[in-house]
């Protein structure tokens, strides 16, 4: 039992990441509103950012700035830097997705996926009948 608890607590950051990731994916799957889907996607991506950042953390390490002390323990800066790039990508994705949502709203008058699907399937059925 103790083992299990240690297992869970020692890797609590990964559990957080997994929970966040599942929440994000679940929202993307279950919500019909396009904006909510984008939010879900954001949560999903955030979990990955957390994953990278916590991965680079070294217990007791400080920020990776040269202090002159040779015994100083640093956190690994590379994952942090990488995730900066990923965040930029994430922002770009979100903004593009939001822009698309706006355009969809303009073109269809709705951003509810079930309504969009009804409209599109009607259009397909009409094409099939011509």
């Amino acid at each position, binding site marked *: 039992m103790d083992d299990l608890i240690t297992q869970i607590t020692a890797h609590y950051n990964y559990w957080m990441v997994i929970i966040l990731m599942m929440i994000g*994916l679940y929202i*993307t799957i279950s919500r019909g509103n*396009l904006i909510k*889907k984008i939010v879900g*996607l954001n949560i*999903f*991506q955030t979990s*990955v950012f957390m*994953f*990278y950042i916590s*991965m680079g953390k070294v217990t007791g390490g400080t920020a990776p700035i040269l202090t002159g002390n040779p015994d100083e323990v640093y956190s690994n800066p*590379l*994952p942090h830097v*990488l995730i900066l*790039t*990923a965040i930029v*990508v994430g922002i*770009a*994705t979100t903004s*593009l*997705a939001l822009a*698309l*949502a706006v*355009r*969809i709203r303009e*073109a*269809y008058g709705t951003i509810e996926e079930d309504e*969009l699907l009804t409209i*599109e399937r009607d*259009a397909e059925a009409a*094409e*099939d009948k*011509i």
Partner: protein
Amino acid sequence: MPQFIAQHLPILQVIVPLIAAPFCALISVRNGAWWLAFVTSLVTFAISVLLFAATFDGEIISYHLGGWAPPIGIEYRVDMLNAFVLTIVSGTGVLTLLYARASVAHEVDAKQHGLFYTAFVLCLTGLLGVTITGDAFNVFVFLEISSLATYAIVASGAKTDRRALTAAYNYLIMGTIGATFFVIGLGLLYMITGTLNMADLAQRLLEHGDSRTLRMGYAFILVGLGLKLAMFPLHQWLPNAYTYAPSAVSAFLSATATKVAIYVLLRFLFSVFGFSIPFEADILFLVVLPLALAGSLIGAYIATYQDNLKRLLAYSSISQIGAMLIGVSMLSASGLMAAIIHLFNHAVTKASLYMVAGAYAKEAGTVSIRELRGVGRDMPFTTAAFVVGGMSLIGIPLTVGFISKWYLVEAALMRGWWPVVIVIVVSSLIALIYVGKFIEAAYMHPAPQGIIRREAPLTMLIPMWIFAGLSLFFGINSSLTSEAAARAAQGLVAASSLIWQ
């Protein structure tokens, strides 16, 4: 050629289109954006041809970004395989841009042309970057550059059909999840190796041996890339995206985007993971092979039901991607060679076919097969190009499709996989049905009343027929492509730690 340029070819391959892209949006001269994009693509094509020539004899070019040596700095690494893919991507870029001028003018609003070509060139940049880089995280960044640009250019088809918007949205959600999976996989690999340089990764993974983290990383990367390359059943974003995107975009993407994703998959499977641990090959055999077989049959089967020509071609693409994955999952030098040569052959064929569809969209105003009845008489050259491409999809001799099918069947026979051979043959037969369906409509039926259709303009016909001609030329004389594919396959084989029969 000045020594300086020769030394920096690998970075120029990416940097030239990257710098040119924003200027496309800024130029206000009429057609200026197109000209700039076209010239840029010409330059990138020239560079990739030079790289292809430099690596053809087996040399590997390693370029250190900013002078930082790998594994610390980012490395651009060009060998036979990615020089081959680079040439496909940039060559397709040149021809689709040539084609795009007339086609895009018809399908996209004039005031959006600047942004459209910006996104197009960015997409080209991303695809070239993915292919050329030797750094795993760099792959992700370029993958996202190309994907984001792709979503935008797919959505620009909204002028013809608003469904382009929802298609782009779906593509975005799916693509982002795929890319994020890929990043998760990279993170897991980084956790156990502490490096992101591919060559270094491979080395350290080999030393590291088996672990759960590695297995998870493998699974995430496989699924993430499977999504990007539209592996069945992760293909659902593809049909709508290719159907409603502007035709030039469909032609470009079908020839490049999924192909580059397959290249990345090959690179990771063979060069990075290298099959040093049995589970890697097992998963390929247990998951990818059945899915590839199912994809090649179901994709073709669904295609036979389509009335929209572009959607028909999209499902046919899913079927052909299945064929490539069959070649990959054979895990033999000959299977790999079949996959690589099919990658090229399918790019050429599909590009010409989408160009045909685009010509119909422009001149006949429809891509519905039913409404295109009798089009063979009104647009003889365009429809003839379709016949050539269609024959190649079926795999009739003297077309590149036959060469691919031949190597694929040969590779399957070498492994003694009879059921696979049957699946390949059956999916070709189904291709016969859907290609035949269109050809019958185009030639055997009279045109609907009161419709005027003229032959497509030369700027569309020329690139279309260059692709169609290539699919005939390399179908008759396949020595160059098969040699390149064989060498690329040998390179991958040598990099992996599988014991080859």
